[in-house]
């Protein structure tokens, strides 16, 4: 196990290095400048800014300087804020995005699994159709539409919840629902397909033939095995959701990190682009690792060993 973890850790470092390098190259090759001289900004002001943020140095020097910084876990200043550094953005924003994302994932996993299981058990009957209609709506309705509808009805018309911002638990309800819909639908559909497949397996027939009660068969044998594909995508879905959604955070005014990447690119805020890419990659790598470990726990047939074999 330890050998496996070390091995994975080494690969994680290499992946991160590659990510930084590629992002660095792409980022500097797109047109546009963080201090584009709009209007009447004089040359001297522009040069001071370039010097202040080390952008006047050759690219290769900037690159190694950045690698050194990242090794010390310092992502540098934001070019657009004299107040917050990239580390501040992550430290302040990530707990918020994580909180929101975790709530959304709980909703998504809980209802997604229930809908999926119900649909598979009542295949081609009305509970199946109802669940799948919900799933299709969840996948096809964009989150900004759903968010707007939620705000319009639950907040403005019926005043059950506050419209937006991030002040108390009741403020988190609407964005959590809006954020949960997509993964919920995704999980429900996957669970349904996977359950149907498992229910047709021979061992289910054997279990039934042994005279096990229907519930026992479904819970102990069917669901457990059907979970595998869901767990596989759970890592990626979670990484997506806990690192914040630009759209949801924008609409609800949530101080998370969802906007970091998008706004970083829009502003050509190089440290923010790099910082959010590195951070997002690290989270993704970590969660995929967790998923691999969870596999062994759900399915004892899978063993974690070293890389060879």
């Amino acid at each position, binding site marked *: 196990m330890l050998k496996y973890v070390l091995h994975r850790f080494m690969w994680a470092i290499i992946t991160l290095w590659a990510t930084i390098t590629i992002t660095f190259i792409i980022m500097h090759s797109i047109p546009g400048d963080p201090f*584009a001289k709009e209007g009447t900004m*004089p*040359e001297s002001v522009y040069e001071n800014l370039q010097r*202040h943020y080390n952008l006047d140095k050759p690219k290769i020097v900037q690159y190694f300087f950045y690698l050194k910084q990242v090794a010390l876990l310092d992502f540098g200043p934001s070019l657009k804020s004299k*107040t917050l550094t990239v580390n501040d953005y992550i430290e302040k924003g990530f707990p918020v995005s994580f909180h929101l994302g975790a709530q959304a994932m*709980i909703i998504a996993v809980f209802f997604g699994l229930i809908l999926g299981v119900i649909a598979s058990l009542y295949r081609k009957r009305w509970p199946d159709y109802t669940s799948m209609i919900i799933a299709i709506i969840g996948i096809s309705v964009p989150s900004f539409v759903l968010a707007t509808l939620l705000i319009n009805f639950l907040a403005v018309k019926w005043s059950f919840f506050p419209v*937006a911002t*991030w002040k108390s638990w009741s403020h988190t309800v609407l964005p959590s629902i809006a954020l949960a819909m997509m993964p919920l639908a995704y999980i429900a559909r996957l669970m349904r397909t996977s359950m149907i497949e498992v229910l047709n397996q021979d061992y289910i027939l054997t279990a039934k033939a042994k005279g096990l009660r229907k519930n026992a068969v479904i819970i102990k044998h069917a669901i457990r095995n059907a979970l595998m594909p869901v767990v596989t995508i759970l890592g990626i879905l979670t990484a997506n959701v806990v690192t914040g959604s630009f759209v949801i955070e924008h609409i609800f005014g949530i*101080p998370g990190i969802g906007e970091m990447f998008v706004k970083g690119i829009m502003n*050509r805020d190089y440290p923010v682009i790099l910082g959010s890419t590195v951070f997002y990659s690290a989270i993704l790598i970590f969660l995929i690792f967790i998923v691999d470990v969870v596999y062994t726990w759900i399915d004892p047939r899978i063993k974690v060993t070293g890389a060879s074999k």
Partner: protein
Amino acid sequence: MKRNKYSLFALVLALMVVISGCNSFGASEKTTTKGSGKSDGKKEVVEKVLNLNNSSEPGSLHPGTAQGTHDSWILEHAFEGLTKKTPEGEIIDGMASVPTSDDGINWTFKIKKDMKWSNGDPVTAHDFEFAWKYALAPETASDYAYQLFYLEGAEAYNGGEGTADQVGVKAKDDVTLEVKLAQATPYFLDLTSFYTYYPINKKIQEENPKWFTEATSYVSNGPFKLTEWKHKESVKLEKNENYYEKDKINLDVVNFIILEDENTAWQMYKSGELDLAYPLPQDVQGQLAQSDDKEFHNGPDLSVYYYNLNNDVKPFNNVKVRRALSMAIDRKTITENVAQGGQQPAYSVVPPGIPDVNGDYQENTGDLFSEGIEEAKKLLAEGLAEEGMDKLPEFSILFNTSEGHQKIAEAVQEMWRKNLGVTVTLENTEFQVKLDREKAGEYQVSRAGWIGDYVDPMTFMDLWTSESAYNDANWKNAEYDKWIAEAKQTMDQQVRMDNMHKAEKLLMDEMPIIPIYFYTKPHTVKEYVTGVYTPINRYPQFIYADIDMDAKE
């Protein structure tokens, strides 16, 4: 087997406990529990709280490095400069009494008695000298340092060629500030009310260079002080008891939320969570502008929306072609049916609201050209013939990606197609890319806008001199340059204004740029809020605002 199932269940439960326990709602929850601050036993005094939206997290609440409305809206209420402006736009005493200057170059400001910082320190002339030199220092790397380039030696110091001592600002003693400008500047007293010219507390800045990043260490000298800043979430201002005119300040608390989505902010305004909404979503503006809603207000704005024609590209080098394109645009249709914010069609470049020697500068200018399809067709044919072309080649309108710009570009495209038979394509890019291409001259027609830095026609007129960095139309005219240069060298308002009127007329005869409309500032304020005013070059100001608490209930 069994154990496993329960442990999964336990894990989910544990996760839920952790999440519900974790508090990501910022460090303090003081806002709700505070209640009325000064109940005197007899009658409960209710705090007057104004709620509004600052749209974006401020990048810097330091006057020297601030550079946008998300910074300045807060700064304008937390700080005060040497001078300030009344709701009517008149320049009056701020921290200093309004001085006079015969030559427009040497100005001596006397700081008034008993001016205090929010921490009780006296405001001195040294604070101003220090603040201006701080913003100009090359190592500060301030975007807006150039706002101070009016001072003698300022540009050289910022460019690393001069020293701080050579900058034309000197505190003679605690109350006397001597300023020497590089050249005569009649509107200098307008500039001293602008935020780059605000003072900073020298002692605080030297002790803690990061004082402006947190509310706990924040010190200012204006009507309000910063008492809470939850980054990316909210900013709270409270009345500054050390402010010399504190009796005129009625609000106790001002809460800014930070919410980028205009539609959500509008919903919050409608549900009563906000008292003032600005900026408004475009369709809401359109509806309100045509209604007689009492909460809706519109005011002039110091900015113009226009199209650049690249004068280096054939046939836009021909004045008849340029005029034809301009005359074929129906500006009234654009403002009323497309932009929909109560904007004003522009037939000149300097927007209304700027005082002339007598009256309003833009009103005195009047319309410098008129629209007309037949005339436009004729001019186009003549212009093309002069360039040896039989038909205007296909060209594109470049604009930065935005729904609003897109709609306007589509309208113009259709008008040019229908009225002149010209094929036009639309091209949208990111803002930064558009700027790059304009600078490099790689465009034919591009969308542009300009917001004036100070209330004087010059803030617009010097954009199109040959030397100007923003002359993206690449238009050069010696006569125009001469008039602007003359106007810049004199303090005689009559001569200045005459020259600028003449230059503007020439600009519109030559039409290197096509003005479309003057922006306005449509906003809504709840009826129980009074005293909000909108200076031409500022966001709505609530320094003297008041809330009728009975009406609010």
